[in-house]
């Protein structure tokens, strides 16, 4: 009997236990990161690289210039190159940023950015290495007058650490004064429909109107998405957590590791919206002395402190950690890429879910070229965005789709069957900006169903829909008024003529005074009625 067939003891089992590297884990579970299938993998690589470029440019206050190229090397094998004019990356950071999973600057801070977890780009490198065995090649030029660092990188999967195959310092390779370029070879599949890189870049251009993006597709076409404005959107600031959003486990960890000497200072230093008064109030509610050392609290006291923190009245968290696109820039972005006759946009005031600030923006484009498809009664197109990233996959699982579908669109003049998206010549855009976007999975495809978020989305879209309805109504009204006059002028003579015929009377009757009376009276009546309706 082989060993495996024997009943195992606790000892046997102990020998089999091993730690698993996070890289191994995601290698096996790569569908969690958006690498479910070859066409989605191709899009994911483009997306992660472009998101990183945009984030870097904005942090460095540089108007982004981004070039994307996808080249077919052989069947199902593509080389993706993305170059930006961002600040570049210091030599020492390059390997870990691109070749270590869970490494980055964005995870530990509360501030809106495209990336969140420090996984995306290194997962792309992991995927390249897994499917084609090729290293990723990184060019970085952090100094205007300096040279270009070149790295050939792989990931040591068992350790989740970078493996540097080659390093070089060269003169050229980056077009702009500073910048980064990444080049990755993967197994992929190129599609031209809704989930295409083109669609992704076009939607990106809409919500980043300050970016200039060039895209060269595998078929050799070159698309240029020019800049619409020369101004970046407001830069987000980092904030501290808000007491309402903190959980017991986190609080205990913070109490243990804080440098503050007493509870009062701890509360004021480590949380937003807590001043001296609030700190005192919290301690009073919790029955804990203000001067206690944070590390000295018992478990029971920790629980009481948390309850007190969440019961005391506090201002909402500061919202300057958010960077909405802004009504005007969003309108610019839409007008530039969509040829509609009416466009409206709205940026709602920030709101909060689970103590985390978020902000909804929405836009509707109506008519014009969109009417081309009107006869087919097609569904409106819904464009979803989170922190300025387009969401192309899993619309049905997304809070945005849910919120937009739950609106009674007939009230706004569009057809709708059941709880589906409306039909009509309409594009609906929704953007959620948040310090921490609650995606339903790491592949960032859909927003989780928080009631606070759904409510805000509905309010934003309904306001846009209301404006659209007003526009449609106004268009119809103008048309109608000119029609009314001609109706009277046509039919009153017919009434008189046929009445004469019926009565068998031949007298001549002057119709003009009657028509004048009628038209005057009708205009007055119609206008006052029109007002009532508004």
């Amino acid at each position, binding site marked *: 009997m082989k060993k495996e067939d024997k009943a195992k003891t606790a000892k046997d089992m102990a020998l089999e236990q091993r730690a698993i590297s996070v890289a191994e884990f995601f290698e096996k579970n790569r569908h969690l990161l958006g690498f479910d299938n070859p066409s989605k993998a191709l899009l994911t690589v483009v997306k992660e690289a472009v998101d990183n470029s945009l984030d870097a440019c904005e942090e460095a206050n540089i108007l982004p210039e981004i070039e994307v190229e996808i080249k077919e090397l052989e069947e199902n094998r593509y080389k993706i190159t993305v170059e930006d004019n961002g600040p570049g990356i210091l030599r020492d950071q390059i390997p870990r940023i691109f070749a270590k999973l869970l490494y980055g600057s964005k995870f530990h801070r509360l501030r809106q950015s495209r990336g969140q977890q420090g996984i995306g780009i290194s997962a792309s490198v992991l995927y390249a290495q897994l499917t084609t065995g090729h290293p990723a090649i990184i060019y970085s030029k952090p100094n205007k007058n300096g040279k270009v660092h070149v790295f050939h990188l792989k990931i040591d999967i068992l350790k989740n650490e970078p493996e540097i195959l080659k390093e070089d310092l060269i003169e050229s390779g980056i077009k702009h004064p500073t910048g980064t370029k990444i080049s990755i070879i993967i197994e992929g599949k190129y599609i031209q429909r809704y989930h295409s890189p083109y669609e992704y870049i076009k939607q990106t251009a809409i919500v980043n109107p300050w970016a200039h993006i060039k895209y060269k597709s595998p078929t050799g076409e070159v698309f240029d998405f020019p800049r619409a404005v020369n101004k970046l959107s407001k830069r987000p600031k980092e904030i501290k957590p808000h007491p309402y959003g903190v959980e017991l486990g986190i609080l205990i960890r913070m109490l243990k590791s804080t440098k503050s000497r007493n509870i009062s200072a701890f509360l004021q230093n480590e949380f937003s919206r807590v001043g001296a008064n609030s700190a005192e109030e919290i301690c009073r509610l919790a029955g804990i002395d203000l001067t206690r050392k944070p590390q000295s609290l018992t478990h029971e006291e920790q629980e009481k402190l948390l309850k007190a923190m969440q019961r005391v009245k506090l201002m909402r968290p500061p919202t300057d950690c958010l960077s909405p696109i802004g009504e005007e820039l969003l309108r610019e972005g839409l007008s530039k890429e969509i040829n509609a006759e009416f466009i409206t946009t709205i940026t709602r005031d920030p709101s909060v879910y689970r103590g985390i600030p978020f902000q909804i923006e929405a836009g509707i484009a109506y008519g014009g070229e969109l009417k081309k498809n009107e006869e087919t009664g097609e569904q409106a197109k819904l464009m979803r965005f989170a922190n300025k990233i387009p969401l192309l996959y899993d619309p049905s699982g997304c809070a945005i789709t849910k919120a937009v579908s739950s609106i009674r669109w007939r009230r706004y003049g569009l057809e709708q069957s059941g709880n589906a998206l409306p039909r009509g010549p309409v594009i609906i855009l929704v953007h959620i900006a948040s310090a921490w976007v609650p995606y339903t999975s790491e592949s960032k495809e859909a927003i989780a169903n928080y009631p606070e978020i759904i409510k805000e989305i509905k309010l934003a879209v309904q306001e846009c829909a209301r404006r659209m309805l007003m526009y449609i109504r106004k268009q119809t009204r103008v048309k109608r008024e000119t029609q009314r006059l001609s*109706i009277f002028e046509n039919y009153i003579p017919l009434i008189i003529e046929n*009445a004469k015929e019926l009565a068998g009377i031949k007298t001549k009757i002057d119709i003009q005074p009657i028509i004048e*009376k009628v038209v005057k009276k009708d205009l007055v009546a119609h206008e006052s009625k029109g007002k009532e309706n508004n």
Partner: protein
Amino acid sequence: MKVKEKKIIKKKLEEIGKSVVEQAKNHKVPYLRIPSRTTNNIVFDPKSLCYVIGNKTIMRSAGNIRHVKPMAQMLKVASFCKDLVEEELKHETKRGLYYISESWGEKLKFDEQPESDNIIEDIEAMIGEPRENFHIIPNPGGAVYGDLTLKFKNPSGKMMKINCLQTADGQTIGPRMSEAEIVECNAKRVIAIETSGMYNRFMEENAHKKFNAILVNLEGQATRATRRLIKRLNEIKKLPVYIFTDGDPWGLHIAMVIMAGSAKSAHINKMLATPSAKWIGVTATDIKKYKLRSDKLKDVDLKRIKELKKDPRYRSDKRLLEELKTWEEIKKKAEQQALLKYGLRYVVDEYFPAKLKEMEKK
């Protein structure tokens, strides 16, 4: 139709035109007042036991954007009908009128038949005459059999006389038949039957002799012409009328429309309804008593019964109300022909005499 009547109709139509011309002459914005045919102006008249039209009128004004076109069309239709009446022998159907309107030009032609139908009913209400009288006729339907001699002009205008036994399969009742002069009538009552099958049974079993009756085939819901002929036999010859239908709420309602008219034609019910007519059956009680082959009442049937129970025409007749309740209780319906299970003659030899006796006792 006699010459005098023709003149009356013509005059009534002309009055409509005159009123408009008068107003226009005085530079007033002309309008017409039309008895309202909406439900809130249809009232139940407990005396005649039928729906009649109330006092409310609607105004159709040349000053209202939504009225100008139908007002012009109404005057044109009235004018056209005046011509039909003048020519005496010319009649048209509602559908025909809709097509004829095309010759009136783009502005006056009707886009949908319901528009022209509505105007015809408005004219009926305004002049208080059924449309047959201004020569817009329904399709014929229904038939009559029995010892009844009528005089009329045939469709080509020739004066004719006919005895209603003188027919192979029945004399169709159309607009000419319904208004024919009753020359001789040797019957004592009228029996109106819902289905052709049962009507044939009655004819073949010599029911007209047995009951000394004129037999009328309703062919389902009675046409206006049939209702008019029944009313005339009842009014002029004082014949009592008995109605024999299928045993379901729809059959009962066929009888009710003969007795009390329909809500839709409230404005001319006085010309069509025969309030003294009586419904013989098949009653819900009959279904139980005669153990007739039956189907389950469907939801739509039960809904209909609920509606009828609220209808004042039924609320005022205890017997009918009871039958409706019985239906709700047994939840079954039966056709007239279900009585054939007792043999071909049974319905004429047993069932009908018994029912007749019961009705005449009351």
